[in-house]
């Protein structure tokens, strides 16, 4: 298995380039003179220039020149606080539900009932409760991220093989040690999957929250640029949200790997 994996990856890499390269070519050709007008779809060159300008401010092409760090910092902060809040509540509750029957019977039905309402359905209520902007964004992010974190932690904790627990007990582990050295590591793969889903949703709901009106943030830039008819900036913000989301996911997975909690041997 170990030998074949890299091969697969290589093959996947080449195949993976075909679609983006052809899309890029179509995009490039379509936005040449006489093609799609720039106010609908800017050319790749314009887009890259706008993105560079957004980050460095060297060209002053748009009103947003050089403001990338301010906006992205604001967005990252929101995602981070919303996500951490969701994890701080979702992980303990998830583990409790997964291991203790009483917690499951008393919590699980209610949580799943609330979960049925799509996160976006909370928007009007959140605006009534928290007004537009900061608090609403935070609320939406943590609410949306909570469910996958909770559900997956509970799933991971409840499906730990009872034989592993027996082995731990027989080797002298007390209740606390059983939790920290058996239940927790055994539940990690599922828990991390939940955290990743939650983080992805955090970014999605960040944009939703920021669209309601905050002064700084990539979502705010998108909304603002739409009003100015600056389609380049909308696309650039989308791309940066994608990049930041991907980076945050890599940091999340990487830190669990660092903690030796997602060891190779275990994942396979």
């Amino acid at each position: 298995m170990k030998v074949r994996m890299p091969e697969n990856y290589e093959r996947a890499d080449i195949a993976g380039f075909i679609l983006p390269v052809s899309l890029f070519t179509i995009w490039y050709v379509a936005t040449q003179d006489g093609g799609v007008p720039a106010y609908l779809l800017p050319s790749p060159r314009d887009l890259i220039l706008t993105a560079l300008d957004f980050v460095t401010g060297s060209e002053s092409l748009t009103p947003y020149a050089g403001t990338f760090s301010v906006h992205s910092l604001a967005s990252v902060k929101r995602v981070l606080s919303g996500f951490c809040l969701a994890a701080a509540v979702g992980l303990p509750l998830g583990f409790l539900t997964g291991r203790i029957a009483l917690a499951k019977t008393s919590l699980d039905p209610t949580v799943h009932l609330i979960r049925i309402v799509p996160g976006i359905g909370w928007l009007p209520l959140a605006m009534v409760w928290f007004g537009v902007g900061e608090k609403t964004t935070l609320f939406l992010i943590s609410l949306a991220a909570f469910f996958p974190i909770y559900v997956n932690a509970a799933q991971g904790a409840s499906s730990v093989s009872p034989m592993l627990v027996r082995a731990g007990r027989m080797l002298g582990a007390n209740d606390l040690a059983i939790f920290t050295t058996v239940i927790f590591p055994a539940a990690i793969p599922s828990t991390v999957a939940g955290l990743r889903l939650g983080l992805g949703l955090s970014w999605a709901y960040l944009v939703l929250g920021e669209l309601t009106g905050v002064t700084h943030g990539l979502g705010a830039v998108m909304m603002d640029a739409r009003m100015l008819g600056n389609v380049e900036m909308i696309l650039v913000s989308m791309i940066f949200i994608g990049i930041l989301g991907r980076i945050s996911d890599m940091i999340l997975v990487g830190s669990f790997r660092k903690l030796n909690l997602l060891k190779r041997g275990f994942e396979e």
Partner: protein
Amino acid sequence: MKAANISATDISKSFSIPDENDLLHVLEDIHFEIREGEFVTILGPSGCGKSTFLNILAGFEEVDSGYAICCGEPITGPSPERAVVFQSPVLFPWLDVKDNIMYGLKQLGKKKDESETLSLEYLEAVGLEGFGNYYPVQLSGGMQQRVALARSLVLGPKVLLMDEPFAALDAQTRYNMQQLLLQLWENNQQTIVFITHDVEEALLLSDRVCIMSKRPGSIIEQIAVPFERPRPISLTGTSEFSMLKSHILSRLLT
């Protein structure tokens, strides 16, 4: 130190049958005694309740009636004094081999360098030197079982409960593991309960053989093994050995 003897009196155990409103009687009126330092093997047809009985001695399963006593105290739960080698290895998949072996020592609060030396010693004893950094998935089934053996032995338990520990091994490795077990037993005089399907293994290793009936299992015969130790492999060729072996086989087949 309290004597590590075990006595089980009148033990019965049933399990509920899945999706049925009925009970499966697995063990019926088991009487079983084992002296401190005695090596007893249990033989019996598949499904007769051997593993269940061992789980009761280990403290994993509760009895329906009767009681089990170890070291003068009723068995109420698992303890590292009664180490178990399960029928399947049950290693911690997120720990490498060395950390698996060190797990119990860590729980006992042993110093790290001390337990590291000890675990390397036992890793070598089970013939896995150089595999300390492997993860369980990267080992063969027999190798995993030897890690499980080392993980239990390293704790120096007073009682060893072993459930067909060598069933997955080839003849050579199995012989080596048997010799290792005997050697450790001679040095430390643990009390050993050892389940096997291999009559020769039972006769070569143990002081006494207990034969269990079909389900519901009870002990139908106990045979003191008369052979002097050490018991060489050539013993299996003697007529006394084959007579005893065929007697046991005939009891198992009825």
